[in-house]
């Protein structure tokens, strides 16, 4: 029987979603909302999209909930739209800059993105494709100086800007986190739980490798020995007697007593969906993103839900 070779995957370029006709250069002296409406109308006219008001409302609601200024003078207003067959992208530039948020500097490069609702990863893939210009401090300002839509288009084409095949864990992780050292004491740990209002903290060794996590729940388990929990009714214990030992020893007790070595973790380049698997498998509230054994970031369950269902 003749076997057909599996179709080779063709990598998508960001520029496959728009052309020079979708670009509005030099949008000066307009407000955020005016720009978004103009750009939306422009894209809608070019592609025969009908529901402009609904799209506009969706984009502004998203923008008001959480501004989409990503970095270095670039904003990516976007919305997830029902019944959209494919993504649409419109680009605008502004030499003077447009203020998208009170606490953010003016933006010079605006990419308006309409995504089909059932393709949650697309926005993140577009962000990944833009990684190079997001890192370049002067890129947005340089693009805004370009005179014509064709020149702006050429800028994007030159950059390559290939969409990755999938969204990986690193794309959705939060790289700002607190961690404890494995030689820290229980006192430091309890202080951290209280001060940071968290119920779980990763623990690193002296090389920065992640060795486990500590959970506030596990701390309670140390205070309440297992044999007390055999009783279904703990009402006879009316004071905090089980906590006395920890109160005496917290400065001398190392974290190892409550260290949990079984936690949800994925490697940086793992597909983001594997984060959901790990969180579910470990009944966890967060997943740690590792590079080898090094902790690179974490993905909380609310963050993951936001990325998949809302952002």
């Amino acid at each position, binding site marked *: 029987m003749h076997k057909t070779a599996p179709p080779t995957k063709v990598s998508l370029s960001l520029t496959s979603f728009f052309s020079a006709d979708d670009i509005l250069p030099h949008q000066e002296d307009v407000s955020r909302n005016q720009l978004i409406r103009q750009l939306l109308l422009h894209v809608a006219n070019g592609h025969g999209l009908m529901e402009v008001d609904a799209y506009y409302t969706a984009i502004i609601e998203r923008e008001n909930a959480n501004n989409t200024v990503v970095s270095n003078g670039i904003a990516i207003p976007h919305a997830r739209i029902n019944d959209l067959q494919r993504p649409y992208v419109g680009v605008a530039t502004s030499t003077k800059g447009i203020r998208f948020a009170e606490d953010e500097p003016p933006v010079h490069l605006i990419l308006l993105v309409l995504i089909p609702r059932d393709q949650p990863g697309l926005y993140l893939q577009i962000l990944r494709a833009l990684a190079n210009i997001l890192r370049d401090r002067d890129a947005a300002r340089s693009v805004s100086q370009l005179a014509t839509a064709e020149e702006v288009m050429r800028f994007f084409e030159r950059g390559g800007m290939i969409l990755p095949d999938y969204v990986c864990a690193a794309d959705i992780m939060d790289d700002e986190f607190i961690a404890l050292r494995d030689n820290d004491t229980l006192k430091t740990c309890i202080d951290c739980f209280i001060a940071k209002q968290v119920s779980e903290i990763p623990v690193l060794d002296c090389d920065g490798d992640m060795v486990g996590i500590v959970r506030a729940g596990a701390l309670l388990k140390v205070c309440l020995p297992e044999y007390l929990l055999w009783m279904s009714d703990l009402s*006879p214990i009316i004071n905090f007697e089980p906590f006395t030992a920890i109160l005496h020893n917290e400065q001398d007790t190392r974290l190892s007593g409550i260290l949990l070595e079984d936690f949800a973790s994925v490697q940086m380049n793992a597909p983001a969906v594997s984060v959901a698997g790990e969180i579910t498998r470990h009944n966890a509230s967060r997943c740690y993103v590792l590079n080898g054994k090094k902790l690179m970031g974490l993905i909380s369950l609310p963050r993951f839900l936001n990325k998949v269902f809302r952002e």
Partner: protein
Amino acid sequence: MYSEPVVKTSPLHVLGKIAFMAGLTALAGWGAHHVGIAVKPLQVVAVCTFTSVIFTTLFFPAHRIAVAFLGVAVLVGTRGMTLQGMLHTAELDIILFLVGMMIIVGALKDLGFLTWIIQTIINTKKMTGTTFTVILCVLSALLSSLIGEISSIVVVLALVFQVCDTLKIRATPFVLIAVLCTNIGSAATMLGNPVGIFIGNKAGLTFSQFVFGAVPIALVALVSTMIVVLLWYRKSIAGMSLKMEEHRKVHQGLGPLVRIPHRRGFFVLTATILIIAFHHQIENILGLTGADNTNAFLIITPLIIAGLLMVYRPRRARHYVENEIEWWTLLFFMLLFAIAGGLQEQEVTGKLADKLAEITTGGPKALIPFVLGITSIGSAFVDNIVFVAAFNPVIQSLLEHSSGYSILWWALLFGACFGGNITVVGSTANIVALGLLEKRGHDHISFFEWIKVGLAIGVLTGAIAWGMLNVMEMPKPLGHRPEAKAAALPAAATGFSPKTAQ
């Protein structure tokens, strides 16, 4: 809940073990055929099936239930055993007894009684390493004789971990001490070990007869063990004494000082033991007499107490049934008993008993070291119930030759319980203890670390049991007839045919 560890090994290693196991099983079948105890093909099938279960518990413990399922299927499928025979030999009475006891122990935990025991010991004034070790030995033996070895080791190790964690000392020596004494104490009553109720029931002994026979030997074995471990672990015990002294100086206790209500739990345990202790008298009052009702009230007492407890705590009833009963273990027991029943149904055990009676000179007592030795060594490596299940029909057949062979029930009991101390895999209590020790990140006990002290205690207690069985007048089952009369009567008339012994 205890669960079997699944060890990951390379496929080649697994294949090697399977081949070795198959070879040994075939050898056992050939050997049984060669010596004339398995002449017919179905008899060889029965021998090979039973042997393969033994080797599975040794080489692939996580797969033992799977192999036992297949074994039963092979026996029934090849007509090596009838379906009726399988159901009859699965010993549902013993399984129900164990189910009831497990629910009672779950309720005792729930009601705070076991927590209270730990709290009471932790709050003992002026404790030293030596007094703690003595208390640990006595508590391990006593608890295991009353609530079973598995529940007992969980309770006792909670105490050990609490004390050792508080004092920041290595828990391993005290875990070993607790396990050794738990296995010894488990021989003292029918409640201590599944083999106890199995042997007691098969031998037709009442609870009090069993206690009068087993307690003296278990007690001597316990005291001897205590002396050995106090010397063996003297450094660890001295270290504990020092730490306790340091702790006392800074006015720190060994755990939280909490008042735990214990009266309801104490009442439940006392009522259970009292009713079980007087089961024979109750059976007589209720007219539960005759071979068909042997130990009937003993078997149903845990069911009555467990039923009442579940009526008393209806919201916990499902928890007791789903979480407190070791279904995995009980299912294995049922299947194993059924497979051993296949040996009996095929008359393999009868032939083996005849051979043993032929080759042994010196009467039943000459077989004590043989049964004690084989069961001890066997129990050191595979579940002790396996050997008890294997020897049960053999002893029953030997009883047809002479009722004096009833002494072998005791040899079987002590071999199975004391032999469990020899290796790390010798009894379920050992495996549970090792698992708890590793799970809590405390330590690991290597095979050789265990066998050094385990073998010494195993040999010592085995020798004690042998010696005492030779000099003690062991209680005889009800209906036992003096030797002269028994010899004069045909086996069926002695009241000790396999049928009536059940």
